[in-house]
């Protein structure tokens, strides 16, 4: 039953992608409202899935790689819904939907939904630590999406080759401001998640600690570089993409060790 909810949610995100593609082909571009509604609907089904799964496993549904990926996808959609309209970044929905759809399609198609045979007792600190860290991933993902948008717009301005999308993407300075704010949100939430890890009350695997710290240091350096003017905005945008790719890889490492570590 819960997987059906996830399938419907994925269809919502795929619909947003299809709508964007059709508008692109027709050279008519007004995807903001439609994409926003599609993402909101997808988010509702995601939330329903996570809630059912949570009741099923008796804790926050991040017990295996499948659930972790869905939780990250949910966080991305959550940040888009909370932040997208307030920053008024047109086309952010058009860029967000493919990321969420890809994450969910991978989770649905790959054989990674392996349930634990033994029910793990709930640990509120551990759940807070893990969920807060994954919500931070949502902010990092959205910073990555804004980074892609920045690089697309920057390249067009630099090469003087203005395509249809140029007129619909937000200005460079607005995108950079959004990237900076998202990095701060992500970093603050991740720090909160990391610090709460010290209160879990049980030893965590060292690989998990190293991977989590690496993500924290990576984003800390990007923010430090941005404020100390080590990097130009274009570099910061590129680092957001590299950073999120690295963070996703490390997340896989963290989840894998957590799964093998769980009794």
């Amino acid at each position, binding site marked *: 039953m819960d997987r059906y909810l996830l399938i419907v949610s994925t269809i919502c995100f795929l619909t947003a992608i299809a709508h964007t593609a059709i508008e692109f082909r027709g*050279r*008519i*571009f*007004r995807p903001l409202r439609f994409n926003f509604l599609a993402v909101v609907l997808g988010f509702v089904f995601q939330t329903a899935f996570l809630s059912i799964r949570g009741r099923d496993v008796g804790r926050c549904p991040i017990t295996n790689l499948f659930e972790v990926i869905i939780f990250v996808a949910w966080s991305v959609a959550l940040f888009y819904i909370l932040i997208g309209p307030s920053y008024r970044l047109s086309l952010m929905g058009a860029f967000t939907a493919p990321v969420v759809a890809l994450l969910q399609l991978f989770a649905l198609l790959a054989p990674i939904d392996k349930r634990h045979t033994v029910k793990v007792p709930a640990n509120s600190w551990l759940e807070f630590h893990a969920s807060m860290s994954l919500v931070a991933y949502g902010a990092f993902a959205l910073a990555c999406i804004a980074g892609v948008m920045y690089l697309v*717009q920057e390249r067009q*301005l*630099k090469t*003087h080759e*203005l395509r*249809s999308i*140029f*007129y619909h*993407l*937000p*200005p*460079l*300075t*607005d995108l*950079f401001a959004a990237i900076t704010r998202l990095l701060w949100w992500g970093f603050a939430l991740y720090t909160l998640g990391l610090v709460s890890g010290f209160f879990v009350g049980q030893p965590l695997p060292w690989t998990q600690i190293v991977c989590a710290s690496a993500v924290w240091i990576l984003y800390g350096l990007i923010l430090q570089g*941005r404020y100390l*003017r080590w*990097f*130009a*905005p*274009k*570099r910061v945008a590129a680092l957001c993409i590299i950073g999120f790719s690295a963070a996703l890889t490390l997340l896989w490492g963290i989840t894998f060790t957590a799964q093998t570590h769980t009794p």
Partner: protein
Amino acid sequence: MNLFCVGLSHHSADLETRESFAGHAETDRILRSCGCDEALLLSTCNRVEVYAAAENFISTEQIARCLSRAQKVDLDARFNNFYRYEAADCVRHLFRVASGLDSMVVGETEILGQAKKAYEAARVAGAAGRYLHRLFQRAFRVAKHVRTQTEITRGAVSVGSVAVDLAQKIFGDLANCKVLVLGAGETSERTVRALVSRGVTDLRVSNRSPERAEALASAVNGRAVPFEKWRGQCGEIDILIASTSSEVPLLSQEQLAPVLRERIDRPLFIIDIAVPRDVAPDVNALDGVYLYDMDSLQSIAEQSLATRRAQVAAAEEIIASHVSQFIDLIARGLQSPGKNSDCSTVGESSLRASES
């Protein structure tokens, strides 16, 4: 009821001819002199058109005489410049005009505002009745529909407006942008004025002749900067408009690179409209610098115009569907579905072409 349009535009008449008919007639005068039941005058720099509804046939000549009477122009010589559209053709023509399809620059939106003003003037004068009211309200809706459903208004089509559009795509809100104008020529003044119209307030002008710099600075509420000190401004400004008559580039990559290190997080938009160029082309390779010269701005303007022209067919389709809907509405007696208006008598005289 005969619904028709008589007029001349940049398609059919030269400026001199248009001048001799423009602005001499008021809507109520047309109504009185020609016997129209309803009349509306749309007079812009590119067209003089009368939209009218009349029970009896009103000839093109009668309308032309109304428009020209005060001037006593040689009507016979200029009569051929007039066109006339009736019934569905008249509806189609107005929808095309309001949507910017009939404009000199395809897709320009100024005409919609002018049409709204003309309608308002006729309404206030009591010259626009239910036919013209419905016709123009529908025309405004069609224009909006065309604008949102196609890319007919996309992109700027003049060098100045392209520069302003680009500035907005880099900085967003231009109110906090600092602009330095290098060279107080006519083109730079036009570009500066376009930027001012979008909210720029911090303007600095530098020119070899301090008097001209002062003159332009006071004209645009800016301040003059001595020519020998303009490079020092590059660390502060966001937009540089260069248009001097210098034979050699005034700004090279080597000169700009050290300044940029101090402003790494702020983009610099350089509009080089000088020929020969004031800024070395390799400056564009620097991170955060967006250099546009006359050719690149012109090319973007042409690209936008080409895109607009490519959208004409889609716009015509939208207009065609609205024309048939409107004609149906007229045939039903101007009644919206489900509404019983007081127009029952109008149904008897549905739209027809004039019997000349």
